[in-house]
């Protein structure tokens, strides 16, 4: 990547374009932002870093008017303001490109731009505007192309052009390189540099330290809803950034540093992958030649940043996604606890009994012995401490924690040889979390091969006997300590 560095990076004297001070935002009992601050100057590329759940996206949603803070102040060009909706933010020249694009696939580039711009539709004028922006900004894009025929990179250019067409001078890019190939990433980053050099302002939410250091003028690091570091890119290193993101090692829970339980891992492979690759619907490789085994009686922890390919890896091992290449050896029935419980794991409008019957529904024949399933459900509710009146209650009436305990219990029915678990305690309170953890450890001790992914690194460290890191679609084994795992996730050296 050839980006002029060191030129044009004396930003301290510049005017503040955007200032967010002491922002607090809670969702129910969860504190997403706890007095976070961010100051961005005119003409700089400002990188916003942090682990999953550090609050980066929430803070940027507030800056773009998609969410409102409970406390704190927003100022644009030194002038205090409140954003009730993105419309207010756009009026002040702020544009945001979210991770999931908001494009109409069946429409052309020009139509999508016109849709975002509002006002009467004038195709000729829109095309002229796009061509002008395209030329001025150096983002090549054919106004007549249909969105569904565009590559991901081109779709992203379209999102940026949409924002520029609304005269945005400040662009918030939420993990823009997560969906791009390395070549496209380099082009995009070079473009943000040119945009800032031309007087624009870019806020880049990112995971990859190397990328960030290559392009940003200044860097802000967030951890657990707070701003923990702000500094010039020239004054920080990959190592100091990683330290700031991961926090002091004193924050580690005891279980992570405590010696492993005395049980020994039996060396009997249950799941093994050899050179397994996965391509998404656009043909982009999400997982590169993964080779690994999971043995009987172990918990394999998976650590990764968002979009690294771990989601595909877990689904391949669970038998829910067919690999595009490579060989997979796995038991016919693998238990799976997906992260999006309401979407993928339960039927909210069905009873608990019916949700339990869902396990193995594909191979059921004839008349279902409902009384037997009801008994199984009732005993599951007892052993897994699921709080509900009876087995015929609707799933919808249970709290998230009780739903999750039932799902975990269901997937462990009949002691499966393998269980794949994804963010098993997201949204759960402390008590439910420890119960789910206990269930996983007990199953491990009974010989089940378990794979756990969590976006919370501490949870992976607390549960895992062995850890792998998925970064940019590649799998690597790492030492099971916070520092090594954290650095491997962030691809820091």
């Amino acid at each position, binding site marked *: 990547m050839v980006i002029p560095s060191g030129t044009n990076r004396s930003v301290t004297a510049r005017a503040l374009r955007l200032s967010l001070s002491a922002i607090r935002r809670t*969702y*129910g009992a*969860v504190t*997403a932002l706890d007095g976070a601050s961010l100051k961005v100057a005119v003409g700089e590329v400002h990188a916003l870093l942090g682990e*999953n*759940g*550090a*609050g*980066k*996206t*929430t803070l940027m949603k507030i800056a773009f008017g998609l969410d409102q803070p409970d406390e704190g102040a927003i100022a644009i060009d030194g002038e205090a303001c409140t954003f009730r909706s993105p419309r207010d933010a756009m009026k002040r020249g702020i544009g945001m490109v979210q*991770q999931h694009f908001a494009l109409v696939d069946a429409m052309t580039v020009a139509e999508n731009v016109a849709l975002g711009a509002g006002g009467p539709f004038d195709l000729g004028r829109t095309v002229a505007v796009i061509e002008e922006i395209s030329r001025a900004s150096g983002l090549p894009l054919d106004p007549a192309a249909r969105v569904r025929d565009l590559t991901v990179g081109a779709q992203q250019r379209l999102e940026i052009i949409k924002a520029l067409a609304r005269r945005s001078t400040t662009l918030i890019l939420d*993990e823009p390189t997560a969906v791009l190939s390395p070549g496209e990433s380099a082009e995009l980053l070079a473009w943000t540099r040119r945009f800032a050099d031309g007087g624009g302002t870019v806020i880049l939410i990112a995971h990859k330290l190397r990328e960030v250091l290559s392009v940003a003028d200044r860097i802000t690091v967030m951890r657990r809803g707070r701003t923990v570091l702000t500094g010039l890119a020239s004054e920080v290193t990959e190592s100091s950034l990683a330290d700031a993101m991961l926090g002091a090692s004193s924050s580690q829970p005891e279980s992570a540093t405590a010696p492993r339980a005395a049980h020994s891992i039996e060396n009997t492979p249950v799941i093994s992958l050899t050179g397994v690759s996965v391509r998404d619907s656009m043909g982009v490789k999400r997982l590169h030649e993964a080779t690994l085994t999971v043995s009987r009686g172990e918990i394999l922890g998976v650590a990764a940043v*968002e979009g690294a390919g771990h989601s595909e890896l877990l689904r391949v091992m669970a038998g*829910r996604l067919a690999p595009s290449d490579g060989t997979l050896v796995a038991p016919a029935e693998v238990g*799976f606890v*997906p992260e999006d419980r*309401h*979407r*993928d*794991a*339960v*039927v*909210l*409008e*069905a009873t608990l009994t*019916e*949700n339990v*019957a*869902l*396990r*193995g*529904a*594909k*191979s*059921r*024949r*004839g*008349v*279902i012995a*409902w009384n037997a399933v009801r008994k199984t459900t009732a005993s599951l509710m007892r052993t897994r401490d699921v709080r509900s009146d009876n087995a*015929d*209650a*609707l799933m*919808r*009436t249970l*709290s*998230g924690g009780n739903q999750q305990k039932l*799902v975990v219990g*269901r997937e462990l029915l009949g002691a499966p040889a393998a269980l794949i678990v994804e963010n098993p305690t*997201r*949204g759960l309170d402390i008590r439910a979390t420890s119960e789910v953890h206990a269930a996983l450890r007990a199953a491990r001790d009974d010989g089940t091969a378990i794979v756990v992914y969590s*976006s919370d690194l501490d949870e992976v460290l607390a549960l895992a006997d062995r850890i792998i890191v998925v970064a940019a679609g590649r799998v690597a084994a790492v030492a099971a300590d916070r520092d090594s795992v954290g650095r491997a996730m962030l691809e820091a050296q």
Partner: protein
Amino acid sequence: MKFRRIVRPLFELSLAGVLAVVVLALLLWASGYPIERSLSALWSGAFGSWSIIASGTIVRATPLLFTGLAVAVAFRAGILNIGAEGQLLTGAVAATAVAMTVSPTIGQFGAVLALAGGVLAGGAWAGIAALLRLRFGVLEVISTIMLNVIALNLTGALVRGPLQEATHTFPQSAMLTSAFRLPRLIPGTRLHAGVALAVVCAIAMAWFLRATASGFRLRMTGANPRAAFSAGGIDVARVSVTAFIASGAIAGLGGAVEVTGVTYALYENLSPGYGYTAIAVALLARLNPSSAIGAALIFGALESGASAMQRDAQVPAGMVGVVEACVILVLLASEWVGARAGSVRSFLWGGPPRTAVQAEVADS
């Protein structure tokens, strides 16, 4: 459990019946018709005597029950089949075609053959929409409505062409010979064997959905296809297509029953919109097959009474259509409101109040 399955549907259906009469009375009053005379004409047209109940209300309710079941099973599988009307018509056409081509010497088996023709044709007609959805992602709401129009015009063309009666004067088919007519259940009434068949269908469907593995897969696919696939390994595309075709087959059977049990001939306007009223029947029954029997009876009574009201009190029969729509809207609205006010909901439907879904912070 018992309460939910028996008492609640009965309560809802009676509520709907009372509501219908109240709304109708208001409409009559607002349009200046004599309320008492109109309502008594409606009552005697629907329940005036045992023979009116049997030959009017119940016979009128039968096609509504078949199509109502068709809509209910599709909706339960998550498929918005608006095409029961077209599937009913193609079923009627097929039954007529069977009766016109097979020799009457076949005997009483002929009616069975005609019904089988109706089942196949209705299923195939729905299969077109199922295929369009599976292969090209065409929304079934749109394709089935279009197929309704095609079926209606196809029927019109057939009764003026290949299926027209021998004198080529009237736009209708020849009368079915006795081999292809369904037997009467009670002599002297129009109560035919198809009525019993419809009730058997309803009970069988209720059992199928509740007890069997296939019925379970169908319900889960409709309620949450992603979880059905991820947690249950269910082939959701296959389940939806099968349910869609089965839905069409049931509506087709309804059309065949209408021709072989009631009209004995194919007419262009054989159906006064049974397939559309069917949506109201299914919704009123909350997609529950056994409740659909009651819902179909209510609508059968209203429509049977509407003709009497038009004859005896000069009230346009269309007014009953307005009433039907009002009942559905009020019931849907009460559920919608109930979902937002737990106490009202549990009073009306006995369901548990919705709990606030825990706010889950999915920050990345």
